[in-house]
């Protein structure tokens, strides 16, 4: 599932609930360089919709993939510029 891209950083927001997964994803993306990929590991089921919505509404980020892995939701976000 992650073969297509290299993960630069992993953000662990397990146990945290809205709005923190999105807020911390934004902060982590700010610290990345262009073309780097952030993996976000969350347990908030709302993060599937929220991170998708955030990535759609935010410039210079692209959601590459979302994977439901048992109780854990993994999101892969690329900083495009």
């Amino acid at each position: 599932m992650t073969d297509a891209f290299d993960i630069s950083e992993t953000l662990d927001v397990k146990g945290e609930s809205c709005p923190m997964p999105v807020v911390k994803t934004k902060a982590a993306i700010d610290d990345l360089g262009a073309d780097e990929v952030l993996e976000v590991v969350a347990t908030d089921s709302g993060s599937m919709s929220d991170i998708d919505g955030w990535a759609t509404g935010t410039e210079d980020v692209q959601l590459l993939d979302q994977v439901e892995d048992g109780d854990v939701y993994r999101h892969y976000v690329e900083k495009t510029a």
Partner: protein
Amino acid sequence: MSADTPDASEEDAPTRAELAARVDELEAQLDAATEGDDGQKKMSIIATKGTLDMAYPPLILASTAAAFGYDVTVFHTFWGLDILHEEKTDDLKLSSVGNPNMPVPNVVGALPGMDRVTTAMMEQKIEDNDTATIEELLETSLEMGVEFQACQMTIELMDYDEDDFYDGVTTGVGAATALQDMAEADIQLLV
């Protein structure tokens, strides 16, 4: 009918020069209307409530909008000031009356001390669910550049002092500031 003939249509049609002039005119109007619009999205929230439950929506939306890259201003007035108050923000109460969805009937909720009981229940739920506290959301929002404003008129009305609020909170602002902010915003909310 004569109006349907090609000759008549051509006579009525604007000339190329007239169309060009009209385009120039409209472009000038567009420039004037969008002057100062740098494409930056803005959200303006008015926070008027200071109960534990009602303190959440403005802070959750403010921090989330900041994550979307919005310029966010939250104008706090009346009980909403308590959210920004250093000594009160971690001690906001949940009212045990006035909400028929509460697990205690109003007649019980009105007993002395019941607000403390329902507040403690809510705080326990917040802790059990790992929900961010109001203080955490406020500090996160400040770090993200959200501008929090404390309405000057209600600071005085409620006998607060400008120093009572968190560092970074703007004081000395009133309704005109809020109105101007709302006029420029893409999203305006009253909570």
